[in-house]
């Protein structure tokens, strides 16, 4: 049994102009230690897949199981979100707290003990140690993204859901992030959404989503070795 299992999942959003089918019959599963890269154009339903996994969006049809639970009600959804680490696309932290306080609050709120040394180590690796005492609204987009990643990774999640982890980052910092994520590969199951082809390197499979349709149009691609991709560039 996979960590995440989607079977014929349909998701519909209500908008002012009518309803939109964001996912149409998506089926896939994420095994233990596996990394899936979800690719596709904007609005194709990549983020929706992550939100369905977290129980923030309910499918209108199909079955979703995460850690063996269906994220249908608030309680199981909360439990899944507590066990998973979710990196948001736009970088969501509480502006009134410093980055450090956000990290502490995040861990305490999830009922975990904070390993302060581990936090500093991650911050050092992601080049954000200097901003730990700053408020999130005083950070650049890239700094915020990496600070949030420190927060998500420091809590030892059982599942990583990373929404566009290299967006808003320059080439150097993108490499730093990809390097760091590669250290989690095999240990923690990951679903990564991105347009960034460099993330192929850390993925076991690539799902392509177009117009919310996976299933038939799903293409499984074998990853290319990371060192090779470096050489190619």
């Amino acid at each position, binding site marked *: 049994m996979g960590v995440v299992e989607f079977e014929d999942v349909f998701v519909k959003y209500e908008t002012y102009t009518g309803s939109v089918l964001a996912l149409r019959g998506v089926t896939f599963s994420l095994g233990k230690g596996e990394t899936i890269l979800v690719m596709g154009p904007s609005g194709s339903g990549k983020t929706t897949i992550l939100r369905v996994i977290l129980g923030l969006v309910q499918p209108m049809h199909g079955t979703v199981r995460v850690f063996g639970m269906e994220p249908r009600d608030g309680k199981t959804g909360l439990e899944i979100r507590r066990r998973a680490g979710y990196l948001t696309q736009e970088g969501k932290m509480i502006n*009134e707290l410093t980055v450090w306080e956000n990290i502490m609050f995040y861990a305490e709120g999830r009922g975990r003990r904070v390993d302060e040394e581990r936090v500093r180590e991650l911050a050092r690796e992601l080049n954000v140690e200097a901003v730990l005492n700053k408020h999130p609204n005083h950070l650049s987009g890239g700094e915020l993204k990496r600070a949030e990643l420190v927060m998500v990774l420091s809590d030892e999640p059982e599942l990583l859901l990373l929404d566009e982890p290299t967006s808003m980052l320059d080439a150097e910092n993108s490499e730093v992030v990809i390097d760091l994520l590669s250290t989690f590969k095999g240990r923690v199951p990951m679903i990564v959404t991105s347009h960034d082809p460099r993330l192929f390197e850390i993925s076991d499979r690539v799902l392509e989503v177009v117009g919310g349709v996976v299933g038939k149009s799903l293409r499984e691609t074998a990853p290319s070795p990371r060192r090779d991709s470096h050489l190619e560039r």
Partner: protein
Amino acid sequence: MLKYLTKIMVRRMSFFLLILMSFTVSLLIFGIVGQVGHLVDDNVEYTFAHYRPHAVYSLDFAFGRNTAPSAVRWETVKVMNALEKDLNKENLSAGFLVTLPVTYIKPLKIKGHTVYFQAYFFRNIGDVEEFGFKFNRPENHAVLLSYNLSGNLTPEAVSARFFDGNASLVRAYGIFREYPLNHLSSVEYVQVAVPLTNKTLTEYFRWLNQDILNSSGLRVTLYVASNIKNPVRDPHIIESLVTSKLPRSLIADVIGFYTKRYGKGGVAVDVMNGINGSRLVYFNGTWIDPARNEEYLMRVINRNRGIRSVSFDISLRRADIVDLVKEAGTQTVGFFEKYGGLLVVIYLPFFLLVLYASSTVFRDLRNDLEVLELRGIRRNLEVVQEFLIFLAAGLASAVAYAFLSILPDYSPSPLTFVGVTGLVYLTMLIARNGSTWRLGRGSLLSLTALLVAFILLGYMRVNGLVLVSRGYGALMLLFSLLMAFVPIMGIFVGYLFHRACSGLIRLFEPMFDVRYYLRSLAGYSYVLTFSAYSLGIFMLPRIASLDKVVNAVLRNSDYMAIVGYNGVTSLGLLADYLDKLSGGFGVMGLLAISLIFIVSLRKYRSVREYSSLRGGDLKAVQRSFLKFLFLKIGLVVVLSVAVALVLAVFLDAYIGVTYTSGKLLVENGRLTLQSLFKPPHVLIWG
């Protein structure tokens, strides 16, 4: 966790704004309640100290036939002294006047005039003063209380004729104090107060003719003026004192007097109590109800032959103090009832800021929760944070309450605290839940129509009374609806004002690009509204003269005719309140303008710094800054004038529908309006 939640809250500007505005709104409302209460208390104290008489009782005593004047004097003086002693114990001052009700049987013929002469006998001149008559104090002289004579006949001549040339008169003033004077119309009369001496009584008896007195038996009326020394603000306490406790005490005193005089078993006192409508006979320590125990009463009287039977009636003639204190309380309530809608308009900028701060706090809270939910953090944190927000706003109200409670004269009641905190909470709840509420076009048009109808009717001085008299009964429904909507219309004026401002700017759209002005209004909406409203209220007493209206209303008021003094009517309270408050509002308006100035200056500095780095035109930046600043201030000035005018028109309409008065009469089967009072318009030039 709580540490971080508290940190999040206290680092939010909107949270501080909410606390500040909760404090300010509470302080202002507590202030107004305290101030109105203080003014009304002043009035109550004045009434207790200067108004006479507070209550008047009449006690009718039946004397036997052939009673000598000296005996009448002796008995009445004894009764008066006994009553006075007891009333003094009750912390009351008392005055007594004695009169003979048969006076009008025999008018005086003098110089071809028929003059009715009424004498009120007093023990000492202070008795007359306790009834509220004022005069230059004569010792043992007669006081002319009231008269109506035609031609060259003088009261002195009438009095001299009556008392055989022995009476010199001083004239009393303060004619509104009319008890116990008889109301006589279309006859000539003289009413005087004279000392109660054997001589004056003898002369009076002589004139009235002993036969008249003997034929029906002599009855004497003793008027008792009782004046309460200490102010009592609860009308129920005074009412019970005047209608229950005092009469019981007076009855007990009279019975005490008779039993002392004739012995416990020597007299049966028949007491007719006109105040509660009872009749009881007191004999030998027992009260007997003659209606229920007539036989028993007859047996008692027959068994005790030779006992004296006396009767006296007691009635309460007037109890002005009860009316006056009730009226004072009514004024306080009336103030908030009549001007509730207007007060909402006045306080609108503050409530807007409470609304704005609360909606920002709750919006931030929702954002926090979204973040927390993504992270799988417990949702009950929402309850903790909301509790913290409401607790802080409540504490701000409590601090305002405590602040005003230090001032003894203005301290509001705990009930007011509950009410004001409730109002703040209600505003916060509206902000929390009502961010999606929108007034539809239909509701907006209906409310506009109601408001226009209200203003037109008020301006034309038309109210329910006028409508009925003119036979427009059907319109009464609309009028009742308008009156019920007054407080809502108060809020609506503010809402309409917001809409009207942007509508006004859009009118200029065909002439030039108005987007900049609309952005100015939207971006600084709350500060602009706050400063414009504050300055508008500052301007209100300068374009509207409430004193003019208050004076006209007071001249027309029955209440004023009784009391003779009053800074206190609900309208007078509003005039005082606006006068005292307008300066403070002016300061707040200027503070808000300085805030706009500071914000503009900060923006200017950053733009100048940016431009100088990139070699931009600094003069153009300066011009842009000045334009920005003057536009904002110009907008505030225009809006302030608009607010002042809207408030003045609304106030004028309020006064129109509230104070227009008259008397409805049925003439030839039709309702007509008599002695219509139309209050003047409030605008100083109107």
